[in-house]
């Protein structure tokens, strides 16, 4: 079997034991890697209803068959667990040296089980596994933690760590790697913290199994060079993702004031042009020649690496338009190990709830210094406010009540990323049906909606486009595992990934083979949710009600007077379910499950609810 090491490293932190297990070709071909591996293992091994922050949850680290090889944007690793934020399947991917080092150490999957009684970190070097005391780094931020571990193990080591957010079980704590990279929005860092696992360091020395090593190396290096050239020609990485802010502001899709507004006259102060002008450094993921990590100095003088989600959620959504202050909030999130998207949404919701008299407090939109103080409280779970903010918008709204659920900007418990869909039906559907809760990584359909469809259409073409993009973004790029940016941003043909996959595995797959795996993974992710929430119904795929509220319509600008319409959204959801072969509750039918080779999984889910 080429393309996969075939090895799983299973580590139990309760009794500090580990063993090497293997998986066969059938498993590899059915689930491919990354998200596919993580999902299937969590489905098979977790009992439904377990406490996500208890010893029964498992932290999965998994890579794909092209991960870590020299080819465009293959430096990514998936981290996954049952989410403490949503209660469903949760994962994320991040650029990290762990990708290559894990493959060289001889593993495609690491399963971390149990719970240590004391803070520790893991050192993995090929077959050697050490459980080391984390006394010197527990309680420290991710920057100090990484510096400590790099000093000890060298800059080339693969390092994943949590900050104080994960240690204190903040429900949107992430796992950090390198400078500005983080993954696992649905609280995967909190799962790591619950296991008292501060960090994982990995080094490997074995060859990565590739069917055509010479051919792949030549092709991969050549393509890395070509991608770098296209980036230079097009200038994409001059602003990277941050160019999106000015565009969203023009088309009324920017998150402003807890997404109550869609544009703001001061947005230019924090846009990609200003960021590029303030740049002091640029960082990127391993195996990347289009580095997008624009780094500026924050208000306190730290280096802070920003992308669009950061400036959207910690800037415009909080009505903070001082770039160095937005950078400070971003730095704090990175250091505490908090998700910047959820943190921005949580603070905005808190300010909005205070503004509407639903809760008493002294935080107002635009107050950067207070926002910093609140981030610290949320990361450390300091006091009543810290504990409230650490639990995410869904639980905050449940506690605050007073109708605040309508403007708690999340889907399935995961905060909505920086696209205000007050009048963007297809993108609202993308958030609604995102399989880990609202995340833009699954399907970014706004450009299509505006350019090739009609903004006010709720037609089947939008459901089809959402599914097409989910297959590519939430499917292919999450299971082979690679960054999607060369594909759209630089026009790098999607068929390159089929070529890499086939050169690495020695197989002869087509894109249709990838789409079948993607559909299988999407169906099983839905089964995972249904098994956890047997009374599942389609309202779980709704975006927040405020997007349907005419009283929330813009009073001026491109979408003045317009909001989403619920009856039309329902119809759009029907188109989506029909095209996926799911029932009106949004659950895959038996026939669909069988066509995707999920017969056993369907039988398991039928213990909890009847399938159509």
């Amino acid at each position, binding site marked *: 079997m080429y393309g996969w090491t075939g090895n799983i490293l299973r580590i139990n932190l309760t009794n500090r034991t580990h063993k090497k297990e293997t998986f066969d070709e059938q498993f590899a071909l059915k689930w491919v890697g990354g998200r596919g591996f993580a999902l299937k293992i969590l489905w098979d091994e977790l009992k439904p209803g377990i406490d996500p922050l208890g010893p029964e949850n498992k932290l999965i680290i998994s890579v794909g068959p092209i991960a870590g090889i020299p080819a465009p944007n293959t430096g990514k690793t998936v981290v996954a667990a049952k989410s403490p934020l949503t209660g469903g399947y949760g994962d994320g991917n991040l650029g990290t040296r762990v990708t290559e080092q894990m493959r060289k150490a001889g593993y495609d999957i690491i399963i971390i089980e149990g719970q240590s009684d004391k803070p520790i970190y893991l050192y993995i070097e090929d077959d050697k596994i050490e459980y080391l005391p984390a006394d010197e780094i527990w309680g420290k931020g991710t920057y100090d933690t990484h510096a400590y571990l790099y000093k000890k193990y060298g800059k080339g080591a693969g390092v994943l760590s949590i900050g104080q957010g994960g240690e204190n079980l903040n429900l949107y704590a992430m796992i950090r790697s390198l400078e500005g990279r983080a993954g696992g929005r649905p609280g995967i860092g909190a799962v790591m913290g619950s296991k008292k696992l501060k960090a994982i360091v990995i080094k490997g020395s074995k060859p990565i199994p590739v069917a055509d090593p010479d051919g792949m190396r030549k092709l991969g290096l050549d393509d890395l060079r070509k991608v770098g050239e296209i980036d230079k020609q*097009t*200038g*994409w990485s*001059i*602003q990277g*993702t*941050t*160019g*999106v802010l*000015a*565009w969203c502001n*023009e*088309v*009324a899709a920017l998150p402003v004031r807890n997404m109550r507004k869609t544009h703001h006259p001061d947005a230019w102060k924090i846009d*990609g*042009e200003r960021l590029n002008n303030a740049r002091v450094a640029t960082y990127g993921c391993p195996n990347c020649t289009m580095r997008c990590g624009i780094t500026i100095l924050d208000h306190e003088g730290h280096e802070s690496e920003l*992308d*669009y*989600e950061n400036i*959207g959620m910690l800037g415009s959504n909080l009505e903070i338009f001082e770039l160095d202050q937005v950078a400070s909030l971003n730095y704090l999130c990175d250091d505490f190990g908090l998700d910047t998207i959820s943190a921005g949404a949580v603070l905005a919701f808190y300010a909005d709830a205070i503004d509407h008299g639903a809760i008493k407090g002294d935080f107002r939109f635009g107050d950067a210094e207070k926002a910093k103080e609140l981030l610290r409280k949320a990361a450390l779970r300091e006091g009543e406010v810290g504990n409230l903010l650490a639990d995410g918008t869904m639980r905050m709204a449940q506690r605050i009540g007073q109708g605040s659920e309508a403007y708690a900007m999340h889907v399935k418990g995961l905060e909505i*990323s*920086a696209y205000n869909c007050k009048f963007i039906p297809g993108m609202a559907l993308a958030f609604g049906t995102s399989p880990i809760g609202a995340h*833009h*990584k699954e399907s*970014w359909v706004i*450009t299509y909606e*505006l*350019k090739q469809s009609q*903004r006010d259409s709720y037609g089947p073409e939008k459901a089809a486009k959402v599914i097409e993009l989910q297959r590519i*973004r939430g499917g292919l790029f999450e299971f082979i595992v690679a960054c*999607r*940016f060369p*594909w*759209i*941003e630089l*026009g790098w043909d999607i068929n390159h990934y089929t070529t890499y996959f086939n050169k690495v595995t020695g197989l002869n797959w087509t894109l249709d083979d990838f789409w079948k795996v993607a559909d299988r993974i999407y169906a099983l992710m839905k089964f995972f949710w249904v098994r956890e929430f047997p009374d599942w119904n389609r309202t779980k795929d709704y975006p927040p009600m405020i997007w349907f509220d005419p009283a929330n319509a813009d009073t001026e*600008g*491109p*979408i003045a007077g317009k909001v989403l319409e619920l009856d039309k959204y329902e119809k759009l959801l029907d188109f989506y379910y029909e095209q996926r072969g799911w029932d009106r509750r949004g659950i895959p039918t038996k026939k669909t499950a069988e066509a995707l080779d999920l017969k056993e999984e369907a039988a398991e889910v039928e213990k909890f609810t009847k399938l159509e």
Partner: protein
Amino acid sequence: MKVTVKLIGPFINTLGFSEKQIELPAEATVEMVLSSLPLDPARPKIVTRNGQAVALNEKLKDGDRVVISPIYSGG
């Protein structure tokens, strides 16, 4: 008539301006604006007029705001 042209992302560096007013003859179209700018015609882009996507043959009005952006896949 006068129309404001706003560029997004790397187009600013390609053309050397971020936003400017241009003078156009009456009944000018979006296509005329695009062809007056040295942007690679093969490069995928999305053009909006006053925040709404437009067809290239759409006629502009005095005071319109035309935004030209490359295609993104998200942040």
